[in-house]
């Protein structure tokens, strides 16, 4: 199956999930919880949303495997960039 031949994902379903996650995020952000728990929960929801956009709207899910490798290649570099400097504090 080539990149053009895949079936269309359920774009509206993804949209509804993104919308619900956004509402959940806004609600969760104002709960009376420890700051660390709030931050971890919010980042999990944000990464989940970002992954949905990349996989379904950017069609990464239907790309060849080597495109996946290319797409995730900056993530370790990004983590390294932050960790390398954050240890200063």
């Amino acid at each position, binding site marked *: 199956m080539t990149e053009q031949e895949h079936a269309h994902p359920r774009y509206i379903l993804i949209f509804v999930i993104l919308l619900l996650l956004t509402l959940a995020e806004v609600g969760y952000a104002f709960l009376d919880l420890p700051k660390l728990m709030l931050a971890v929960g919010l980042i999990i929801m944000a990464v989940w949303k970002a992954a949905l956009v990349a996989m379904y709207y950017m069609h990464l899910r239907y*790309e060849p495997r080597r495109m996946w490798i290319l797409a995730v290649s900056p993530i370790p570099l*990004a983590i390294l960039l932050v960790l390398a400097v954050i240890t200063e504090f």
Partner: protein
Amino acid sequence: MSDAAVATMDRKPMPGMKVYNMKLGMWVFLLSEVMFFTSLIGSYIILRFAHPDHWTDPGIVLNVPLTALNTFFLICSSVTMVKAFAAIQQGDQKGLKNWLLATILIGAAFVGIQIIEYAALSSEGFLPMLDAYHAVGRGNPHEGPSLGGPLYGATFYAMTGFHGAHVSIGVLCLIFVYFRARSGAYTEESLAGVEVIGLYWHFVDLVWILLFTIVYLI
């Protein structure tokens, strides 16, 4: 060689990455953009760890409901963009033009709301160059004392400003694609331009999803 044959070749997967060159080029560009935004987000995290007193709790200074609405708009624009691509994949010229126009309008609305937000915040004194921000925010219970230091405003305007610039450039590119669509430049077999601008637009949406969480909610 017919136009259709040339167009088909335009999206022909190339050896190596097995995608056509324009798409590969856009992906490589977007990956460089990942590093660009990482430098901004990384700086933000480091500065916030180093100077936590410069920040306040979410919703006190920044207008979360308005920005949540803006986030909703940008997510909607991703749907309209992907619908435009799906339309031209089926040869639906009218659908392509309508969905592209919707994407342009929603994207412009996002930028407009961001400008309104900047105007409101700056009129309240939330600027990066001030020593401290004392204005009374939305439902702020801490009237009087400082509501954060200059790093709060500096990082806020840097991150959201660069993102807003990306959205603005995206809207301009979409307008270009829209006028090409009106002249019938895209067909079922020649839709690389729509797909590539779509990738850029979805990336801008993806970055905003992360920025909204990091800047406004945490």
